[in-house]
């Protein structure tokens, strides 16, 4: 989308560690990325890849202890969110940055009406009085496509279906005109038809409001449909980053390549057998001194055991601006689009 626009969010060298009785778990290791205005950045990875912990760390939403953000900076419009006071941070949360969580049932409070939960943010962040907040709440519910919005303000979360609850969550996240919306697997708990409704809604809201979105998911199908740029995470690190079409057409990291081949297609030739990524994702007890994917990698060589690969540009552009990968192995350049088309 808007190429070269100023990043609204810039993350550098983020490290998050959980201190447990069994020792430290290095959940996020030196993660850097940026988000441009109006852009939708997809973040893909399995459970335990550190994608959610990374995003929670940005707003210091993790309970500390056991979580500890060891280093890094998170610049939102030039202000480092890791350094500001708690009071300032509260203004940012739900204000400039909205958050939509995975499970709409557990993230809405069951004993308050939906109207109260939406107006709470409006009155707190935008200083609206009760009547003005309610008017805006009705507007928001209409915006996310909840019929009969004024009546529904008095309803409790359990009176909504899963898809409707997720719409309420989105309405709350949008309530204060955020610059950045972070959505953590917002459609994973929903059925495909409801998921399609929400995805269309997000596309439409982006067109109308022009905010930047970070969309966390393990579903490459969702990413293919809505993202501008994709960041693949594995073992608490960014292993590949590229514009969406480039990533699907020319995946470089063995993990990305395997991931694209493990999911069956809905059209085209039916695959005889699914490709399998053997083994399990790693538990990160220490700062990785070697590639985190090496045990499951078919292209492993001795260098992978010795040093953890750094991200390097694939297309000659500055790191982070184009396509980059963290891998010692060079993907053969010849086998490009065709291979993906038939994989």
């Amino acid at each position, binding site marked *: 989308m808007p190429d070269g626009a100023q990043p609204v969010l810039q993350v550098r060298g983020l490290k998050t560690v959980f201190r447990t009785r069994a020792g430290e778990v290095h959940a996020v290791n030196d993660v850097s990325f940026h988000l441009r205005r109006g852009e939708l950045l997809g973040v893909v990875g*399995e*459970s335990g890849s550190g994608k959610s912990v990374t995003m929670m760390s940005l707003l210091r939403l993790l309970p500390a202890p056991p979580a500890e953000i060891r280093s890094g900076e998170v610049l939102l419009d030039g202000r480092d969110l890791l350094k500001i006071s708690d009071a300032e941070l509260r203004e940012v949360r739900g204000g400039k940055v909205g958050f939509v969580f995975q499970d709409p049932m557990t993230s809405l409070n069951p004993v308050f009406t939906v109207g109260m939960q939406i107006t709470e943010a409006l009155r707190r962040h935008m200083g609206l009085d009760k009547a003005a907040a309610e008017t805006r709440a009705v507007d928001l519910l209409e915006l996310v496509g909840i019929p009969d919005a004024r009546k529904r303000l008095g309803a409790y979360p359990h009176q909504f*279906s899963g*898809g*409707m609850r997720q719409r309420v969550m989105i309405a709350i996240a949008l309530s204060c005109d955020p610059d950045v919306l972070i959505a953590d697997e917002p459609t994973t708990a929903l*059925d*495909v*038809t*409801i*998921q*399609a*409704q929400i*995805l*269309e809604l997000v596309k439409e809201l982006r067109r109308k409001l022009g905010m930047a979105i970070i969309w966390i998911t*393990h*579903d*490459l*199908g*969702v*990413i*293919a*449909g809505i*993202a501008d740029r994709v960041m693949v995470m594995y073992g608490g690190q960014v292993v590949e980053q590229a514009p*969406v*079409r480039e990533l*699907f*057409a020319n995946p470089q990291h063995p993990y990305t390549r*395997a*991931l*694209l081949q*493990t*999911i*069956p*297609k*809905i*059209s085209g030739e*039916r*695959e005889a*057998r*699914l*490709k*399998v*990524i*053997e083994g*399990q*994702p790693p538990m990160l007890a220490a700062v990785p001194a070697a590639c985190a994917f090496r045990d499951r990698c078919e292209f492993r060589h001795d260098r992978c055991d010795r040093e953890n690969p750094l991200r390097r540009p694939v297309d000659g552009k500055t790191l982070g601006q184009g396509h980059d990968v963290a891998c010692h192995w060079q993907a053969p350049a010849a086998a490009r689009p065709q291979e*993906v088309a038939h994989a």
Partner: protein
Amino acid sequence: MLDLARQPLVRVDGLKMHFPIYSGVFRSHTGDVKAVDGVSFDIAQGETLGLVGESGCGKSTVGRALLRLYEPTAGRVIIDGEDVAHLSAEKLRQKRPTMQMVFQDPQASLNPRMTLAGIIGEPLDEHTRLSRAEKTARIYELMDQVGLNRRFANRYPHEFSGGQRQRIGIARALALNPKFIVCDEPIAALDVSIQAQVVNLLEDLQDRLGLTYLFISHDLSMVRHLADRVAVMYLGRIAELSPAKDLYARPLHPYAEALLSAVNEPDPVIAARRKRIILKGDVPSPANPPTGCNFCTRCPQVFELCRQVKPELSEVEPGRFVACHLYDNNKAARSTGGPEATERNQQGAST
């Protein structure tokens, strides 16, 4: 698998599963949740039938009622020549080894206080008279079959990852050499990279042991990969039952069409081109389904008849069964290309 004139191993006829609703001070019977409301299909020996639909459509209930984990309200379930729905308790117990189930959540379906050997061996204790040595040998054999290391026999479920736990569940289901296995969302709780491992295992076992599967899932692309034929359920009834190849190439029932169009293709080029049919609203309550066609409240192609008469599942093309009034006139083969395509575009534009 298409050779030999196949006798259906499983034949389901008019299966109904209603759960009563009691309300008021006297807990009087005020209605029924019609979770499954008249479902018929059969599954041939060695075949995989996919059963898909949204949550709450009754697909898991069908699987459970089939194995008589629920007492069906009405209908017959003939598995390998016997009507499971009407067997006496003792006969049913003797029948159990033929039909097994793999559950969705391997965390919840394995007893945390039993070792792996105990879990896999329990069906053997119940249904066979093996000596201790024979039993151990059988347990090891099963563990080999599903790719679990024999050294793990004395470990507990919590020591395993999700994918491995699902292998334990599969080994337990295989212990008594079943002919028919109901797989109820066996991969839904697993990570993408692990899903393929379990699916490949299920396919290998089918090839080797000649198993028949009912594969219940909401993951339509995985069902396409696995199933020979697919039944699409909506609100307790089958909307369409077709060979997988035909269904995915050209769904006939408007619901099947909408459901398939909602699946996300992992390819940005195709995703940008595709027209989705966005269904309005939510699934109605199965306690109070609409009169006429179940889908009439959300159907983009609804007309007057749909609101009055419930369409029956009937064969509209060879091998393809659809419950929809749009096909009332063509019980024989007829293409539906033209008018439907324009309809679809209007739908896409209006959302």
